[in-house]
């Protein structure tokens, strides 16, 4: 069954259309990045999915049901929303123990979950003294309490240092690929999640702009080929004649768009030009992302 399904979801705050007809699905065993610039409507979507925000229209379902109708929500869905939702005077362990008893889970889950995110040492410390990164880990550990199979995380990398981000990537991949969980993770920085996600859903100004696998996203679009040749001046007109757009970068170096590498090689062979380099330029993800979201 589809783990997460969003169908024609719409929600306005006053005159602001925060989410405007968004649809996508997340399957078990995969990580989906929900990407968009600040204010795109990511948080509103995720909170609608979790029953915290009531959508104006459309549906947001987990395991085919509305979150508020789940008999044991914590055991089906683990959610990480913002890192500030803690009482500063309460210890990390107490925070989790409160959630355990409210969810009908055994108390030892609290300690176990702290261990899973590497916070066992500070279990008895007040959250008020925690760094943002520690709070993110604590939020993640609260999502693990019920050992769910669906994870919904809103900007979990915020406030993490590079080592923390690396750890988070590994952790999310482990949840999805080893444990078969469905993971939906939002971010406004594509680079943060590009090494983690299998699928991407891109949203801007409340509307879906692109959805597909990460591979599709990075190979799609207008990628260029760098061509270095002994006799570039000769090669360029021939490429242009074949329909390519050629940019003369410097003496002996061309950037070619509109035809693929094989065609470049064939033309060079016909012209008896020696190629010294043919490189497919990898598209700059962040650039693609900014293009798609119209933020450039």
């Amino acid at each position: 069954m589809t783990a997460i399904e969003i169908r024609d979801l719409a929600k306005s705050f006053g005159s602001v259309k925060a989410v405007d007809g968004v649809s996508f699905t997340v399957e078990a065993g995969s990580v989906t990045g929900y990407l968009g610039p600040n204010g795109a409507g990511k948080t509103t979507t995720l909170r609608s999915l979790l029953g915290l925000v009531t959508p104006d229209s459309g549906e947001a379902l987990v395991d085919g049901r509305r979150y508020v109708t789940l008999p044991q929500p914590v055991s089906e869905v683990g959610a990480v929303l913002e890192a500030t939702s803690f009482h500063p005077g309460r210890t990390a362990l107490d925070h989790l123990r409160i959630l355990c008893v409210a969810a009908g889970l055994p108390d030892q889950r609290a300690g176990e979950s702290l261990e899973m995110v590497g916070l066992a040492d500070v279990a008895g410390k007040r959250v008020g003294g925690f760094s943002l990164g520690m709070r993110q880990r604590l939020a993640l550990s609260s999502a693990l309490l019920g050992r769910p199979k669906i994870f919904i995380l809103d900007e979990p990398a915020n406030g993490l240092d590079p080592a923390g981000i690396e750890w988070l990537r590994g952790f999310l991949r482990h949840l999805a690929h080893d444990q078969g969980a469905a993971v939906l993770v939002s971010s406004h920085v594509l680079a943060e999640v590009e090494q983690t996600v299998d699928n991407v859903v891109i949203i801007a100004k409340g509307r879906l702009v692109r959805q597909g696998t990460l591979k599709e996203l990075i190979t799609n679009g207008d990628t260029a080929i760098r061509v270095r040749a002994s006799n570039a001046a000769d090669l360029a007109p021939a490429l242009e004649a074949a329909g390519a757009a050629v940019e003369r970068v410097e003496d002996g170096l061309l950037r070619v768009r509109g035809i693929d590498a094989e065609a470049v090689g064939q033309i060079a062979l016909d012209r008896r030009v020696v190629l010294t380099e043919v490189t497919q330029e990898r598209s700059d993800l962040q650039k693609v992302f900014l293009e798609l979201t119209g933020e450039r």
Partner: protein
Amino acid sequence: MIGLVKAELRKLFTTRLWWIMLIVMVVLVGVNLAFIIAFAGVSQNGGPALPERDTMEWAQVAWSVGSSGGIFVMILGVVMITSEYRYQTVTGTFLTTPRRERVIAAKLITGLLIGLLFALVILVFEAATVVPTVLLSGGEFSLAETRIPQVSVGILASLALYGLFGIGLGALVRNQIAGIVGAVVWAYVIESIFTAIPALHSVGKWLPGGAAQSLMSIDIDTGLGRPEWLPAWGGALVLVAYGLLFAVVASATTVRRDIT
């Protein structure tokens, strides 16, 4: 529901506020008692005097001081719900229990329990001070001729219901400062006006403070005439009604709002 009430108790007992409130409450009751001990039998400008310290009438007056703890339980009730919004822990609470009215119900029950706990502390404190005072003053302590048992039940009931009231109020206002200020202004300003001015008694007895007084079923002559309280059961009903009314109105309005 038991799990949810346990969770609410844990929320309260894992932060510091509850024992700060408890200490402040005991100190306040203690200060009031000190005055009643000091001025026992002293007549002021020919006005009505407090009974002598060695009498059971005095003990009864001293005992009724415990009802002043209500405001602390009310504030605690307000904070129990408003701090969830203030620290955004409400997100985790509603994620764990998405049926929000169940959370409100658990908080109402917890408010009652906390009121009972605070009332018990007051009663123990009063027993530990009033009884020795009577005995040391040469009197004999015997409950038989007094209404101390009723007053005790009244203190238990009124503090428990103030807890309920505070939860309902907090759910309605959501803002912590507004809730606390509202509770204090209500208890010390508005209620006092309605109970001090005889012409307003007919309204005042229907207010939470007046209803709580009726639970004590003790007449204290303010010099402006004896207030006419509701019967004790009527007072209890009025307090329950306020708490539930607030909670129901809140559940239908503020509690349903989007958490963003």
